[in-house]
């Protein structure tokens, strides 16, 4: 199995995640796009770990997944909080501070 193909897939997914951040205006979806980027990273790491036969890549993935969980907790809390105040989670509406 060639690592190359996995890396290519990972780059594609990463780019799609980036596009998601830029395209979507719903804060939750923006956030999900970031998760997609992290997933792409995970794929690259596992592929490299396979190629190198070293465990460090797997460990890294483990840490990323868990950190993502922590991020999600805080991120969703933020979104809920701002929804309560503003009744909108459209990030284009975040323009209280100008210029």
């Amino acid at each position, binding site marked *: 199995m060639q690592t190359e193909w996995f890396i290519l897939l990972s780059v594609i997914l990463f780019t799609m995640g*980036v596009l998601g951040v830029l395209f979507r205006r719903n804060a939750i979806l923006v956030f999900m796009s970031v998760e997609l980027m992290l997933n792409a990273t995970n794929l690259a790491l596992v592929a490299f770990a396979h190629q190198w036969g070293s465990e460090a890549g797997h460990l890294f993935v483990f840490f990323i997944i868990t950190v993502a969980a922590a991020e999600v907790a805080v991120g969703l809390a933020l979104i809920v909080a701002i929804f309560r105040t503003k009744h909108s989670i459209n990030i284009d509406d975040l323009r209280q501070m100008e210029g």
Partner: protein
Amino acid sequence: METVLFGFGATIALVGAIIMLSSKNAVHSALGLVLTMGALAFLFLLLNAPFLAMIQITVYAGAIMVLFIFVIMLLGADKLDLRERFPVVPVLGTALASAMFFAIATPLLTNNIDLIEPPPANPQVRFVHAATDIGNNVAVTLDGALRSQPLAEGLNLREVSNFMTVAPGDYTVSITPEGGATLTSPISLTAGSVQTIVAYGTGDAPSITVVPEDLSTVQEARSSRVIVFNAFDPDISISMVNFGSEFDENDTATYANNIPYGTASETTTLIEGDYALAFVRGEGSSSVNPGIDNVLAREEAYELERDQSKLIVLFAERQVDGSIRASVDPLGVMTRPSFGGPRAIGIELFTTYMLPFQLLAVLLLAAMVGAIVLTRHAVTPVKQRVNVRRRVARPLTNVIASQTGHQVVDDAPQLPAETDQREPSGD
């Protein structure tokens, strides 16, 4: 076959991502992401990472995405993605993102990254003290071209040092017994090798030799490697036999045959369990009777654990009366657990990666506190705004007047300038 499987997984992952990107409905997007994550878990399996595949499904697709969907439904935010107000962002964004994609992907594909190989690891070396007569408290140093480093200090007879990683190259081992003359011996350590230096033999000038070891994963499940080293008597070659249990005469075997003095046997792979081992002179035989003369030493119930590399040293132990006697010293060392499994990851997590693991715990705690802080209502409640009942009569004309700014009727009682009065804060 693998290519087909990869193609399958990759397609599903991409389809999921596209759904996530393009769906108008946030819930559909979330489900698309779940699909992608599932496909990635499948690919992890292809890449020999079963444990991560499991985590990916449970934590990511399970816990995290459920949380997402929960919040989407809670806020009723499933269809919030409104009309694009700023079309320049997608345009520029697409351009930049594709630029990034090509900047990363093109050179990666034109340079074959599959060719990248791990540079051979640095050699590892340890020292076994099996020299009968040089006494305890031995210091061992490894003198290299660049610097000399202590390998062991205060090492007693029958003890073994830890493995030490050194740069590849030629070294001189110096063994200094307590109050004795220093013995030296040149050794060469090549990259990627794992070596055990054994000092053995009787008298003031014991011999020094190097036994190569193999710490890679033991491929057979629940098994270990065993090597036997003969350090007993220059005149005798030995064999190691399993004389079996008393109940099963057939469960006998010769594992190492006719090992000359100062050499190690071939590697034998054994399944975990209890063994009754005997070390005999000369040619080993499976039908040997453990009671007879040529048995030098024996281990009645030797427990062999899995995933080990055992170096069994048969060496000469000096008795109180000056005679010598064979003695067995099994020196075990952990081999690499099978790649990608939970055991492998678990071991790393609890040894090398202890610090980030603990930090992760603190991080989750902080995130928890943060989530609570953000979603809990403010401690000091906003002062209630209670409108005082107006004391003035409010004829309709008056209201119209106040709203339009025109005076509808002359002499109508006017509203006070402030329409919103608050109660004094001392309520």
